[in-house]
């Protein structure tokens, strides 16, 4: 399906083994088994699957935070060998700096990249406005709601204009309404910027609303089970996705697939919990 000419991201027969446990008696554990997929330029791919099935490992590999045990991870056709600074990385925690104002938080990514003061300010303001936080530049984080903080964190990532944004359950800790608003906003941002986005979530509806394709992963060891194209045209309306033709159909199909995984997990074929721990 995604076999077009030049994907931005490509995993080829990727295996990842983690070593964990005691120094004297380390244990090897297979986190990712024969992962293979490609993501096209400008595509929005979501990843769903039980916790501990290697979803985050996939992102960490693309971000260059770890190396595969075997196989290749390609970014724009080149193998990822060190930290991939062409990507943006957004996690569940907002990872903002408590001691800085909102504006200074957004500027952080630009500071790190050596953008000069005025340009920094201009771009930070610009992106704050894009996420609907104009007027909050001088605020400190404790004065903001969870959703606003998340938007600051997204603005910080967008500010340096990475072509690819990796998002690891970014809306996980937020309440349902806020999530909807942010999903809608993320879709708008994606439409205007056309970045490539890989987005991990536990929320099946979220995965469908956002994605061109939904990738389902399975557990023990982490494998890619299926990839489903979402046959709903863009632009989408996050608030009324349930009413769109084709939604319930794709939802049922993916849910059936994941349900098997969750049941398998429940039967005791449990996943290792070291997804985030090692290295």
């Amino acid at each position, binding site marked *: 399906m995604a076999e077009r000419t030049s994907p931005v991201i490509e995993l080829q027969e990727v*295996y990842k*083994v983690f070593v964990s446990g005691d120094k004297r008696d*380390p244990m*090897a554990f297979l986190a990712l*088994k*024969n992962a293979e997929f490609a993501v096209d330029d400008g595509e929005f791919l979501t990843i769903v699957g039980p916790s501990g099935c290697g979803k985050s490992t996939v992102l960490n590999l693309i971000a260059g935070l770890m190396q595969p045990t075997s196989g290749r991870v390609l970014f724009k056709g080149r193998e990822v060998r060190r930290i991939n600074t062409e990507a943006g990385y957004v996690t569940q925690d907002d990872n903002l700096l408590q001691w800085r104002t909102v504006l200074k938080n957004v500027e952080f990514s630009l500071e790190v990249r050596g953008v000069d003061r005025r340009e920094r300010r201009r771009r930070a303001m610009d992106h704050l406005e894009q996420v609907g936080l104009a007027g909050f530049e001088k605020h400190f984080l404790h004065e903001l709601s969870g959703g606003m903080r998340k938007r600051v964190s997204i603005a910080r990532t967008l500010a340096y204009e990475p072509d690819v944004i990796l998002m690891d359950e970014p809306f996980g800790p937020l309440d349902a309404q806020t999530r909807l608003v942010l999903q809608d906003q993320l879709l708008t941002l994606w439409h205007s910027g056309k970045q490539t986005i890989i987005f991990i979530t536990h929320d099946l509806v979220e995965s469908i609303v956002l994605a061109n394709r939904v990738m389902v992963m399975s557990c023990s060891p982490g494998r890619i089970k299926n990839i489903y194209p979402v046959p709903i045209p863009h632009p989408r309306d996050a608030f009324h996705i349930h009413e769109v033709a084709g939604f319930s159909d794709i939802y049922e199909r993916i849910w059936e697939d994941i349900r098997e995984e969750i049941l398998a997990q429940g039967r005791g074929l449990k996943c290792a919990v070291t997804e985030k*721990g090692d290295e």
Partner: protein
Amino acid sequence: MNREEQLVEVLKAQELASYRRRLRRRTVLKWGLRFAIVAGFILLWEFGAGTLFDDAFSGSPSQIASALVRLGRSGTLAPNLAQTVIEILAGYSIGVGGGIAVACLFAFSRRFYVIVFPFIQAFYGIPKVALAPILVMWFGLGITPKIIISAVMSFFVVFVNTVMGLNAAREELLRVARVMGASKLQLTRKILFPVALPYTVTAMRVASASAVLGAILGEFVAAQRGIGVVINRASTQLAPNVVFAGVLILTAMTLGLSALLVPLERWISRREPKR
């Protein structure tokens, strides 16, 4: 076993081997460099003494070693060492114990905390060096003033940090526990303590140096026995090697004291992710 399973086994073995290799290389490098730094320093000192700098003031490692041996043989080391060790151990335990105890009192009663804290802060501001002569005046040349100074100096480090640690528990967590029915005592014991423990242990490490400092300070002011006396006497006689020998002994004491904390620190570090 099919092809893929074989591959996975190979990959696992590979990754384990490379992990062990990395671990070994890191260990060798670590100890090698440490050894090199110490050896380099000693060699520079040894061969620099008398050539790069005047050994009448610098002393040299070999002369320090022989000064140590001489101190031991002549019988001056043992009584002085014993005196200082007792001072430090007593001062340290009283200081640490008192610091934790008073901090807990504070944790238990917010009102007490609010009332008394300014006084503690003011007392903290007093330069302890200035207190030493008064204590000698009150308690004489014996062991008591040294223990008090040593205790006071280690007390504050532990106290201040433990108070910080006790305040570090998240309010939300405390609220949840309170609703569960936890009493004040239970909150203190089961939540505040564990949260504060890492702070306290870090402070105990710092306090081990403060305790030694306090004891030596006391000995410098006025004393009949102790490593501080040995050092003081040697410096008036312009005998750098003996001074350094004394310093070496004191350093060993501080390190020994903080080495006692290693098991505790290891136990605490279980809760944190490995780095």
